[in-house]
């Protein structure tokens, strides 16, 4: 079963209304197929287009050309709400900048994701997963009352709360110190293993990438698969 598939994805952007007439070619024909349960790392330098690719794969944005599928659905056919509905309960996100809802407590942030995923017992499963990331005592805290590492743990709990089949992570440790970052990565992989989630992780940390089954390099707008030692 294919979780994510992309054929000849091209993304051009018009560098804004600032008078620039030249199109910026960020992605120039990306092909990718990720099977359910795989863990994939996408490596690439700053500005190489990793985030852009991730947003296309998750259906947050549409490619300029080419087509892609998410959980078997062709994204090009769906409008924005359709893509959102597809994500609900199937896709989880972990962002470099956490992106917790500022007015919501840790518990509410996690619950909301579970609820949007159609979870019945959103609250108990949210509590449970927050306990799993070690935040059982901080349930009622608001994001600004938590440290960066704690916020990211809430974000991870939120990402897994909807029991997603596919998890997208964009440099989840980018804003954290090394030790905290490692703890976060442990957690991510642990939950990933437990739930059998497909993981697509963007990073420029080679060591982190090594923990994934497949490692892809984004260079000049194209993906290159790294030869893989058998796990």
């Amino acid at each position, binding site marked *: 079963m294919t979780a994510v598939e992309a054929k000849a994805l091209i993304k051009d952007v018009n560098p804004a209304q600032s008078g620039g007439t030249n199109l910026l070619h960020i992605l120039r024909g990306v092909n990718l197929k990720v099977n359910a349960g795989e863990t994939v790392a996408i490596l690439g330098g700053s500005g190489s287009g990793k985030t852009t690719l991730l*947003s296309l794969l998750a259906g947050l944005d549409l490619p300029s050309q080419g087509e892609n599928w998410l959980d078997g659905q062709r994204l090009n056919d769906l409008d924005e709400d359709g893509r959102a509905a597809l994500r609900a309960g199937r896709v989880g996100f972990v962002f470099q900048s956490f992106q917790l809802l500022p007015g919501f407590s840790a518990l509410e942030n996690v619950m909301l994701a579970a609820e949007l995923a159609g979870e019945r017992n959103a609250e108990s499963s949210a509590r449970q997963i927050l306990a799993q990331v070690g935040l059982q005592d901080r349930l009622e805290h608001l994001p600004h009352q938590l440290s960066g590492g704690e916020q990211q743990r809430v974000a991870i709990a939120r990402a897994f709360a909807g029991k997603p089949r596919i998890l997208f992570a964009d440099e989840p440790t980018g804003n954290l110190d090394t030790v905290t970052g490692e703890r976060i990565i442990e957690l991510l992989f642990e939950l990933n293993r437990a739930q059998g989630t497909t993981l697509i992780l963007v990073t420029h940390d080679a060591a982190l990438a090594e923990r994934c089954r497949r490692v892809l390099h984004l260079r000049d707008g194209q993906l290159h698969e790294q030869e893989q030692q058998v796990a």
Partner: protein
Amino acid sequence: MNKRLALRYAGRRLRRITSAGELRVLALAIFIAVTAAAAVGLFSDRMRGALEAQSGEALGADLLVTGREALPADLADAAEQLGIQTLEHLNFPSLVLAGDNTALAAIKAVSPGYPLRGELRIAPEAFSPAATTRDIPKPGEAWADARLWSELGLQTGSQVQVGNLKLTVSAFLEYEPDRGVGFVDLAPRLLVNRQDIADSGLLGPGSRVQYTRMFSAAANSLAQLRKTTDLPPALRWITPSEARPEVRQALDRAGKFLDIAVLAVALLAAVAVALTAQQHGERLRDEIAVMKCLGASRAFVLQAHILSLLLLGAISTLLGLLAGYAGQAVLANLLAGLIQNLDLPAPALGAMIAPAGLAMIMLLGFAAPPLVTASGTPPMRVFQRSAENSGSTSVIWATASLAVLAILGWQTRELELGAYVLAGSAAALILLALITWLLVRSLTGLRHRGGLSWRFGLGNIARRRRRSIGQAVALGLGLLALLLVSVVREDLLNAWQDRLPADTPNVFLINIQSEQLDPLKSFFAARGYDQLRLWPMARGRLVELNGEAVTADSFEDPDTQRWINRDFNMSWSDYIGWDNKITEGEWWGDEADGQAWLSAEEYARERLGIGIGDRMTLQFGPEKIEFTVHNFREVQWDSFQPNFFLLAPPGVIENVPAQWLTSFYLPRDQRSLLRDLMTEFPNITALDLEAAMNQVRSIVDRLVQAVEFMLLFTLLAGLVVLLAAIEGTRGERARETALLRTLGASSRTLQWGLLSEFAVLGLIAGLVAAATAQGIAWLLAVQVFDIPYGLSPGLWLISTLAGAGLVMLFGWLSLRGVLRTPPTRVLQGA
């Protein structure tokens, strides 16, 4: 996406409302608008209900005809044929003597059966328990009311003299139903039997008798009577609902003030709501993007946010309605006492529909549009802050403004006034924006001079020209509201109150014969009044216009018909008072003596459609004189000075029978002069206007208090707009200052920078607001309230300084916290 989830989400967001300062301001704005609208709406509704429900009791009958001349005799016959009860009574002012005391009283001479509706209440002694009675004073007896009782020092059985009539006071009159329809009657009451009047000598020529015929019957017979009877044009049917128009007039004026206050509150609140919703929408964008990543559809996001908005709005509205309920009680307390016998019905819940609707329009029309725009935020924004969708809210806002106007127009039944205010506000806004733009542009040159903080502050304004202009306009609007409130309070209300200076004449003498002029002058000169100005007065009837005969039938308009059917009171003089304003042509000098010129009041122009140079022929007894209209005047009729519709130069109407009249100010302690006067000149009638003037003064005072109460809300709404304008950039400024601090700017520098920015914004806003406020105040004064109004330069200075001060203060309060917290916290939390 399910609705329950949206509701739960909305509820959760609302609990954290404290984290979104702009939502608190939004809720406050709605609360204030609803409170103001509900207070005035409920009160006006009660007042309207009371006036409409006013029963025949207030007239003492179900229908009246009243006039200054004896009423047609067939009126009574016609009524009796239809089985309608009918009675006639007379009213006239007269001096009443009791021992050494005198008082000017309103004499009412009634026949058995009076009143037809309601009952008199009398007591044997002053202020002792009263009982209702169906009787009237027996011939030779009189009943006096409380004021007369105390002014004359009466006892039961006291003798009083009216004209040459001697009467025994046999009862204390506590209540007469048709007394207090409007303002408490001008003079104290003496109720007498009509039989006595016939031979009292009081009804001679020159007396000021008012004849009133009362009718009472079922509504359909009365309708029949009105249909079958042709009243002479000078007379009019009076039904209970149109008794005492002057009450309605005064209340109308106060009502206008109140309505304007509510309109201003609503529009200001709408601006505050729009401002805060705009900010809220901006802030929501990040959150919405995340929600969409998590799989929420636009519809769900919108539903959730609109729901939380509605929840918030419902709470504010509910609280506002409660506060408004309390507010109407305050208004009712202040104003209802002005009218006797007026039972205010309980506040009708129906009158809360309009304020609640107003809140709804504010929520859906002003608060929702930015949320609708924000709900379209693409999920890409989680990665790319610049990702945004576009959407314009201005059309919706314009529509919503009209909706606010419509609903308030519906509530106040004053659509025209509302349109005035709205157009005025729109013009004011454009003016504000324009002047602000010019001022901000001109700042650009200054930003490279001065200290670091100053350059930073000014630089902020110049760099963000659009934001600065927007903010200055919003600030200007808030200040404008504050200014208008104080202008209205200080200038307009005072002008209204001060229309009657302290030495306004309080006694009128009428019925003075030509041969009494010299004796009268010496009478007054002997008592220190040598400035007495005596006005001649002749009664003439309009018979020809430009040489063509006219009668009432020459005019379609019933008001005109009624008007020209009466004799005109005409005078001649080479002098006009301050209360006359020439509107066209010129006042005359000596050259006019003996010229048949005419100075006409504007009303005459309006009724007769005449212009300068037109010829009017008036008949005085047997003599006809043709006048040429020389100028037009506008008379301030409530100045308590003698005034005339038509004036001629001296030396034209000399041979016509004339009476004279005069007015003067009589201090309280010299009232004995009146007694001497009556003894020496028994035929002269003195009208004591003191009571009437005090009445007018106290009524205006009460009305002013009520208006001030409502202006308080306008003031609050203005402050809320200020708050919204400053809170609006708080987040942005907080981040900006935090960043600058991490870059090494000292917090002192930033502090002064911010303060100088706010100071300049405040100065600009204050200046612009002053200009606009003067314009609007002038418009209101001259166009709406008919009150003279001049420029006040002090206002400009105060406004500009107060603007700068207030904005600095608010800005400082809003950002003080930001400057104190470590920058990292700000940057993290943002």
